[in-house]
């Protein structure tokens, strides 16, 4: 379990996270909703240690993670699928997958097995195994980004807006994959703007507005329409 308490991150003088607190429970899909500029990506980047937290704590099973370097976070099993996919465009699909296993590079046999497993899960990637990742469609690149993260054998998978810039039908496909991963008992933290889709799959959800978590609960807990309105547009008053 990942416990985030009073997490603050800022860009210079502008505070982006103003004391975020939330829990990511083991074996479930925790979803974070929020409008543009709420600090969702900032939170992901802070968890991945790509951004430095100003203060607060991030504990994984009691162990403090603040101060760790990005590669150490990956070794601890917290693996990010960054927004806009960010595959290595001029590497082949297979090489992208191998790159995902960088933190476990010593274990060649297991890496080869995982590669087979991932290619089984994503047959489309197998078809394109030797193609440059940059030549894939947006949806395929997103699959590759998820597959690449799986190659690191994540304990917690952080997904930053996997639906960005994808056609609705592809978004559905991506969410089915996320749902399948959840059903296998994996721990997933999903940051999304697509509230409708996200709530369909989430076990728990939080609402992030202007750098603060303003609501947390289960998908059935609250009036759907109001929530979606707030997820897209935000509100001035915190409830």
């Amino acid at each position, binding site marked *: 379990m990942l416990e985030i308490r009073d997490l603050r991150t800022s860009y210079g003088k502008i505070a982006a996270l103003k004391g975020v607190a939330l829990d990511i429970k083991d074996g479930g899909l925790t979803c974070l909703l929020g409008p543009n500029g709420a600090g969702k990506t900032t939170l992901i980047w802070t968890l991945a240690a790509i951004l430095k937290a100003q203060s607060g704590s991030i504990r994984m099973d009691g162990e403090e993670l603040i101060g760790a370097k990005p590669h150490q976070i990956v070794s601890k099993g917290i693996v990010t699928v960054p927004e806009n996919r*960010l595959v290595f465009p001029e590497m082949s699909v297979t090489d992208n997958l191998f*790159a995902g296993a960088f933190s476990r590079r010593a274990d060649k046999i297991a890496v080869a097995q995982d590669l087979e497993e991932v290619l089984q899960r994503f047959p489309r990637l197998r078809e394109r195994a030797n193609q440059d990742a940059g030549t894939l469609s947006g949806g395929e690149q997103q699959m590759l980004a998820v597959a690449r993260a799986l190659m690191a054998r994540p304990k917690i998978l952080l997904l930053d807006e996997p639906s960005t810039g994808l056609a609705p039908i592809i978004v559905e496909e991506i969410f089915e994959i996320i749902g399948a991963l959840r059903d296998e008992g994996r721990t997933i933290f999903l940051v999304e703007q697509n509230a409708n889709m996200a709530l369909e799959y989430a076990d728990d959800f939080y609402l992030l507005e202007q750098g603060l978590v303003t609501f947390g609960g289960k998908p059935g807990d609250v009036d759907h329409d109001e929530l979606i309105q707030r997820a897209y547009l935000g509100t001035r008053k915190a409830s």
Partner: protein
Amino acid sequence: MEFYLGLLQILGVHTLLGLSAYVVLLTGQVSMAQAGFYAVGAYVAAMCTAMFGIHILPAVIIASVSTGILAMIVGFPALRVRGLMLVVATLAFGEMVRMFFFNFRWQIERDGKLIGPNGAEGFRAIRFFPENGWETGDVALFIWCIVVIVLGLLWWVDNTRAGAVLRAVGHDEVAAQSVGLNLTTIKVAAMALGGAIAGIGGGLYAHTVTHIEHGVFGILLATFAIAYPILGGLGSVFGTLLAVIFIQGFLVEGLRFIGDWRSLLFGALILLVMNLRPTGLLGERMSPLKTLFSRKSPVVTNAKETQ
């Protein structure tokens, strides 16, 4: 013949200079500091042979190690900045080095003559080669032996996981971090390796010309250093080699007969090449990561068959 052997020497040292920028450029960093490391390498190696009577080979190694360490020290603060800011920071470093040698005086007496760096006058009489009876051809051969070793070494690095790692950082830093690459270590290592190679180049250069002075190591040289891998492309080390031959062999030396028009044509030809081949003479391809993980993985073979 003498002329061509001399040209071969120039091509050799410039290849080393270009390769030093190539390594750093793989990680996406445009460094204008390579001429600075080259200068330090030149002075250190020259001091070793001319002032202390050390053989050229250990002298070049000493130069290379010291510039490697220097590059590492410069790397830590410099790589915190990116893009244009890094260009400015490294350019500033290069100028600092140049100004240092402009003011650097340290002469000792040897065989009744004062020898050593003498400020703006430069460092004269770096005569290891003539003193030991090396002909122009011997020197060219010696330089190219070293160039081939460095080229081979880099080519090998490029085709191992290390090369893929450098390129991954060059492509996308966030993506590289999200797969668990340690950015600082990788960038500083590339910088150190680049610095060490520039040191070798500089050390050899000093001995081929026998007289070095601060003016040679200015912005023009720094620009050449970065122009080689950009023009040659990041596909492989041979792109840089090709670019050096093209620029130094063809544009600088080969076009001498057209006199003052050369500079104009020089710029125009570079523009033309960059337009025809925007990713360089030998464009980029990624080195195969898979060969390292599993040379004969059944998975990969399957994947190839389905293609």
